[in-house]
């Protein structure tokens, strides 16, 4: 179960991990509890995102947009390559049943890579936001996005 806590943001773990684990040790866990812990991790990331939006002010949207655009371009290229490979496989292999073991393996590997790439992109965006908060500037291929004190607002979410 302690491995599941790795899904939570670091700041959350620093604050709550000890007492959370102590709570989990106190009662038997069901499958629903495990799902609830995963859902709690997603919520903790959402809260962190909302807090960053509050502290970064209007620059948050610009940062998120730029970060998303670059990752979408890369994911788009990977997707197009994947579709082209899929069409090639479809052309050479008339049905799934007729697909050989090695082809099926490659398709599986391709799907896994794509899924990993999307997850990596989401993780990357969270890292960019974290770095922006810590360093006050982020370098993109199109230039540097800087944050100043007046971009920060002290609204609680």
């Amino acid at each position: 179960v302690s491995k599941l806590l790795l899904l939570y943001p670091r700041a959350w773990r620093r604050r709550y991990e000890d007492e959370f684990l102590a709570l989990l040790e106190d009662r038997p866990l069901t499958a629903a509890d495990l799902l609830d812990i995963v859902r709690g991790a997603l919520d903790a990331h959402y809260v962190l995102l909302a807090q960053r939006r509050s502290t970064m002010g209007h620059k948050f949207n610009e940062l998120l947009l730029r970060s998303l655009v670059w990752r979408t371009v890369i994911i788009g290229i990977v997707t197009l390559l994947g579709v082209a490979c899929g069409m090639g496989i479809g052309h050479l292999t008339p049905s799934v049943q007729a697909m050989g073991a090695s082809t099926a393996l490659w398709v599986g590997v391709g799907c896994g890579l794509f899924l990993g790439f999307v997850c990596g992109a989401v993780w990357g965006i969270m890292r960019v936001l974290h770095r922006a908060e810590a360093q006050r500037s982020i370098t993109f291929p199109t230039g540097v996005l800087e944050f100043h004190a007046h971009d920060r607002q002290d609204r609680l979410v």
Partner: protein
Amino acid sequence: MLVDREASDLGLGRFSEPALLILVSLADGAKHGYAMMEDIEALSGARLGAGTLYGALGRLERRGLIEPLPAEDRRRPYRLTAAGAAVLQEQLASMRSFATAGLQRLAAT
């Protein structure tokens, strides 16, 4: 929306119900997470998951409705603040008037 919401339901979205249960549980004194879960289950029959409990606890803490006390053997108790008690009072009064209105309508039919 990522912005703060001021709604009559505590403004906590899907965490409103767990948050209200937590506030009621803390109304008679400080409790740590496990004690809260047991109390809430006995009080309402609802079994809160640990993820839901801590999601709601974090929100209540950030709003200043509850506050953490020093940890005792890794278990950290939480207690209601004055603001939390006022919000709970308001919520329960609102629920009481709603329930009264509903019961009066039922009795009239």
